[in-house]
């Protein structure tokens, strides 16, 4: 299992080459498949690069949703965002969610994968059961769990006798979302783990068994180390996805901020600023800040991984 390289092919800077050289080089690279990349580049520029550039510009203005009467305000929006307690508290909620979800999902996905890998009967059924929830849309998941946590008629209350108002008190509000999210998305990481388990060469286990290693030792000294790469991938993907948590939370709390504003995530706050208060400039500044945070996490993870790979060598 290797990590997926999502970076676009980079054209080498040609500062030292003359214009004709550039043209020749461009012509060659086009012949070598540039035209095949062109549709992608076009869409990428249209739907990713342009919005980022425009968002960056908007974040420096006091634009409202109508786009009229916009003026340049420099870094005012950024100053305001850094001093806005709601930015920090909602960033805190997103981070808290991430902190809860990532370890749980990693461990759970691993255990489920081990289970599905070792059970000999009806393998397809296990895989289907664990993966199926992932196929549901977030609105369905959100509504379903909102009903399940209902204090009067919900499943949690009737079947498990957890007689607390899960969605209406601060102490359990985010946990309820975490539970729903685990159920919903564990299937994806489960599949990654299952594929990785199937990729471990059987002869390793045979050799270990011959040397007298029992099942526990084999799991500890063969399976776990062989899954190191995929664990890195699962953790990284989950961190990035969890920081951007939005849809299941707003559905479960009906676009409100949750009990005592304990579940408002940063994405939700950005939406409120942009589409309730109509402060598009300010909302853009918050999303640019958020983008920087997520990019920092991604780069930090790459840096950590690089060190570890060097250590392995």
């Amino acid at each position: 299992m290797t990590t997926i390289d999502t970076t676009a092919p980079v054209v080498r800077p040609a500062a030292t080459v003359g214009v004709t050289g550039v043209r020749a080089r461009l012509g060659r690279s086009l012949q070598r498949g540039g035209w095949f990349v062109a549709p992608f580049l076009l869409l990428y520029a249209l739907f990713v690069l342009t919005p980022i550039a425009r968002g960056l510009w908007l974040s420096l203005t006091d634009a409202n949703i109508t786009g009229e009467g916009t003026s340049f305000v420099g870094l005012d929006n950024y100053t305001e965002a850094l001093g806005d307690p709601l930015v920090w508290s909602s960033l805190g909620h997103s981070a808290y969610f991430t902190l809860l979800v990532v370890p749980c999902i990693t461990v759970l996905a691993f255990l489920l994968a081990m289970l599905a890998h070792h059970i000999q009967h009806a393998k397809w059924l296990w895989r289907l059961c664990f993966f199926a929830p992932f196929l549901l849309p977030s609105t369905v998941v959100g509504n379903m769990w909102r009903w399940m946590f209902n204090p009067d008629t919900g499943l949690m209350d009737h079947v498990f006798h957890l007689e607390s108002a899960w969605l209406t008190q601060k102490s359990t509000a985010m946990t309820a979302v975490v539970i729903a999210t685990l159920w919903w998305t564990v299937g994806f990481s489960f599949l990654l783990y299952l594929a990785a388990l199937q990729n471990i060469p059987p002869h390793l286990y045979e050799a270990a068994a011959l040397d007298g290693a029992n099942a526990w030792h084999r799991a500890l000294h063969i399976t776990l180390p062989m899954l190191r790469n995929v664990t890195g991938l699962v953790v990284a993907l989950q961190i990035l996805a969890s920081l951007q948590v939005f849809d299941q939370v707003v559905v479960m709390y009906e676009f409100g901020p949750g009990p005592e504003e304990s579940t408002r995530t940063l994405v939700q706050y950005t939406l409120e600023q942009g589409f309730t208060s109509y402060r598009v400039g300010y909302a853009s500044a918050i999303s640019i800040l958020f983008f920087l945070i997520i990019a920092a996490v991604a780069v930090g993870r790459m840096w950590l991984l690089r060190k570890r790979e060097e250590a392995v060598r």
Partner: protein
Amino acid sequence: MGQPGLNRRQLLTALGGLTVAGSLGFAALGTGADALASDARTRVRYWNLFSGGDGVNMIDMLDAFRAANPGVDVKDSTLRWGNPYYTKLAMAASGNRAPELAVLHLGRLAGFAPERQLDPFDTDLLAEYGVREQDFNPTLWQRSLIDGQLYALPLDIHPQLNFYRKDICAQAGLIGDDGNLITLTSPDDWFDALKEAKKVVKKGLQTIGLHAFDQNFAWWFFMSFYAQAGGTYYDEHLTDVTFDTGKATEILEFLRRHITDGYNIAGSPDAEHFMNGGAFVWEGGWSVPVYDAPKIPYGATPLPPLFGKPATQAESHAFVLPHQSDRGGAANEAAHRLAAYIVRHAVDWAKGGHIPAYTPTLTDPAYRKLTPQSEYASAMDHMALEPPAWFAGSSGTLAQRIGPVVVAANLGSTTPDAAARRMRQVLTQLLETSNPMGGGTA
């Protein structure tokens, strides 16, 4: 594989051609259909946010208008209530794709820019269609003016009400000689009444439902009693915060006491408890059809005046003219005619629990026959309103920020005085944020 004479390239070309032709064809068909439907009549596009019972009533009124005005083609679109509606309206108005007529919550008016997003009504034209200033409650009319021009035409108000079960309250001795709830004028009166009611309410049911967890309701009930106590939010010019944390603490303690004294089970489905035999529930007027359906004996009054003068929170549906750069002519006149017609024929609208804004309706025998509507019509004279700031209005920024604070006090996770101070902070912070639609702060 494949049919002779048709290679891949030809197939692709043919498919591409079909797609292009198809899209052009449908586009042409679309405009054709529009043109056919509109004929030579004047078209009025009308956006509203009424669904459920309100939606049915509105469509009935539109059909009546259509029958009376065959020369006007009303194209109504019902959109989802809340922020998505206002976002669409704001963007359409500034993008010059606006309809001729739309509905707005009056509290939102300050957040919409005059001239750029909304056009003023022609009051002479309205008078021609029978709608004049003297037909409206003065407070309501004043709220609809910006710089002396009428930017909104109020259709109704929808107040917060105290729904009570006549059968339960009679057993508790709370029904007067007129068959309605006795007058209660202080918090002590009120809790004494609740105490009596609790004795006759079945076990497991709450005595009163007050949507303790709902940030909107919590805020609306707070507003009502805070206004009764004479509390304000900002000074007249929206420059200083005048929020009285002492009064606010008193109101928050009052609301909290319903839960601590066991009259309310926070988080219960309030409507169900009431229909099954709870004594009271606080709800918006729009719940009248909900309680009419099961044929329970009930009445509804404005929220009881327990802290001084009567006041109950009320919002208002109003017609607006979204900005069109070429507004005028027959379409504009038809929009005025439609708005005036519906405002004047709002008896049917009142069945949905709203109080018609057009005051002659209130003396209409057909309206006076409606119960409990006629019992709470006085709410029109005692409206507790949000400050006229850009961040106010139904499901707006103010409710979104301040509502959760009231909920926290209701649930006891914040003390009433800490919540009152937090509310003041929210009000201060919002006042410091400049109006994104221009026009300085607030």
